[in-house]
């Protein structure tokens, strides 16, 4: 009886053991399946994220490819030399003329006016904020600059055309209704926050030990600022200026609204000019049929614009990398 019982118990024991073993096997199988799924998920996630990140490269190549392939047709019919040195731009009139210089000078003129406003004002604001202003004043001014930076450019265009131009016309009799001057001035206000905040970053990065050393030698605060701090931050300040110029070159709405749409080959800020960006918008909005020579002009102008801003941005980044890399 006892034997039988022990036998039974040992049997049941063996039984549970077998069941447990079975369960363990199932669990191992299941966990290996889970592990396999986790590993798959990991691989898929990594791959999808990689694709997301690579889209930026695809975009750049797409931009370059489209600008070049679409302007090839243009440059087959118009020699590069005529495009780059001609001073008359009239693709929509007969006889046609394809000299891009009026668009380039229009862009240059508005950009120069803009940077003439934004560089000194932006730098002085940056110096004032970083070297002079109390923390409380900074807390007031910084958001104001951010608001200025966040205003859509079409709003600045409205301001330039319907406020600045009529205002200036009171003092400058020869000022045309569309002119490079007010577009440039307002564009200067638009890029002011960019120039000011990037310059301030550069000034802020100058270590205090340099300031103390200069002050300890008996220099005044102003002498310290302009003799030590600003020269040290110069590469960062240059980067800020270049980025401001690049933004002014690529800016569209202010100039399209306030500077006019006539490609005059002039450096007279009182006259109407057409920038490269304005021309692109003007033609793309119009009813020029796709595939014609007139249509391909916007891609040739776009290519030139892209190359100019790319060069400016690359130099700006190089400057910025230099001040970020410099250990003082």
């Amino acid at each position, binding site marked *: 009886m006892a034997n039988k019982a022990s036998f039974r118990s040992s049997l049941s024991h063996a039984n549970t053991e077998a069941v447990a073993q079975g369960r363990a096997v199932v669990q191992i199988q299941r966990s290996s399946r889970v592990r396999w799924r*986790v590993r798959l*998920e*990991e691989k898929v*996630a*990594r791959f999808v994220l990689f694709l*997301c*990140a*690579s*889209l*930026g*490269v695809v*975009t*750049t190549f*797409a*931009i370059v490819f*489209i*600008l070049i392939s679409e302007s090839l047709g243009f440059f087959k019919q118009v020699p590069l030399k005529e495009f780059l040195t001609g001073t008359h731009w009239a693709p929509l009139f007969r006889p046609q003329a394809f000299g891009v210089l009026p668009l380039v000078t229009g862009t240059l003129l508005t950009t120069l006016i803009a940077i003439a406003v934004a560089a000194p*004002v932006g730098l*002085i*604001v940056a110096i*004032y904020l970083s070297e002079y*202003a109390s923390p409380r004043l900074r807390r007031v*001014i910084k958001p104001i*600059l951010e*608001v200025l930076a*966040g*205003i*859509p*450019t*079409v709003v600045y265009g*409205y*301001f330039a*055309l*319907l*406020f600045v131009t009529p205002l200036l016309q009171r003092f400058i009799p020869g000022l045309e209704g569309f002119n490079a001057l007010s577009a440039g001035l307002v564009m200067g*206000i638009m890029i002011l926050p960019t120039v*000011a905040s990037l310059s301030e970053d550069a000034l802020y990065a100058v270590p205090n030990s340099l300031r103390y050393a200069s002050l300890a030698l008996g220099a*005044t605060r*102003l002498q310290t600022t302009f003799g030590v701090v600003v020269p040290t931050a110069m590469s960062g300040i240059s980067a800020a200026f270049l980025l401001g110029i*690049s933004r002014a*070159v*690529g800016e569209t*709405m202010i100039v399209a*609204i306030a500077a006019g749409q006539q490609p005059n080959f002039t450096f007279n800020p009182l006259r109407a000019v057409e920038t490269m*960006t304005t021309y*692109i*918008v003007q033609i*793309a909005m119009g009813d020029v049929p*796709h595939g014609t020579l007139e249509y391909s002009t*916007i*891609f040739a102008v*776009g290519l030139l*614009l*892209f190359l100019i*801003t*790319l060069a*400016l*941005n*690359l130099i700006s*980044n190089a400057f910025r990398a230099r001040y970020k890399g410099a250990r003082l």
Partner: protein
Amino acid sequence: MSVAMVHAVRWRARERRREVIFQIVGAAMVLFAMTMLTVLLAKILLDGYARLGISFLTEYASRRPEQAGIKAALVGSFYLMLLTAALAVPIGVGAAIYLEEFARRNWWTRLIEINITNLAGVPSVIYGLLGLQVFVRTLMMERSLLAGACTMALLALPVIITAAREGLRAVPRSLREGSLALGATQWQTVRYAVLPVAMPSILTGIILSMSRVVGETAPLLVVGAFAYIASLPNSVLSPFTVLPVQIYDWIARPQHGFHQNAAAAIIVLLALLLTMNALAIYLRNRLQVRL
């Protein structure tokens, strides 16, 4: 008094004078920026407030300025923003996660990073040309909401990626190490430990990038947003208009009545942007996890 002392006194007086002059100049420049902002806002408010009203928000564009409204533009802007966000946010955040959490330091990663920096500096009108050729022509989306949103998504990507990377970078290493030590894989760590913590600042970046999308005009003019739309878009392939395009169209007209409309529409646009920015700041303060 010796000559040297006289010189020293004069020198000090001169330097002090210069110091005061610079302080005045600096304050004047700051005042200049503040004045410009005030004048700009005042001009727009004065020009536009008379046109504001319910009917201005619920009417379509019209030949007669006093009957015109911004219904199509407002709804178009809203749809464009949603669609752009739906396209750009997953890709942008994904790219940021890859670059911050997965990427090895190799030439491809460096290329991607240089690319994103440079794409942020490409003029927006160039994105318009890209959209025109790729989405409108090659993919035959025509001048539709979808084509506009795809273009704006490419434009917004660098901004979203940069913001999301900053958000991820602010998450402390210890959190990642803790998760990995418990046996989580890298993706599980990102998904369950890093992303939830980084979410508020990523969200803030997304809203700020969307406020840029709402204010952008030039690429949409190139891709072909029409100013005259007398119906709301009923599919992603409908033609569309947005607030800045409507504003540009009204500014470009000679009649004073349309200029008033433009100013009123600008007030609506600025109010919209202000709301979005306030929301971003609110979210940043509200959802920030203290670690």
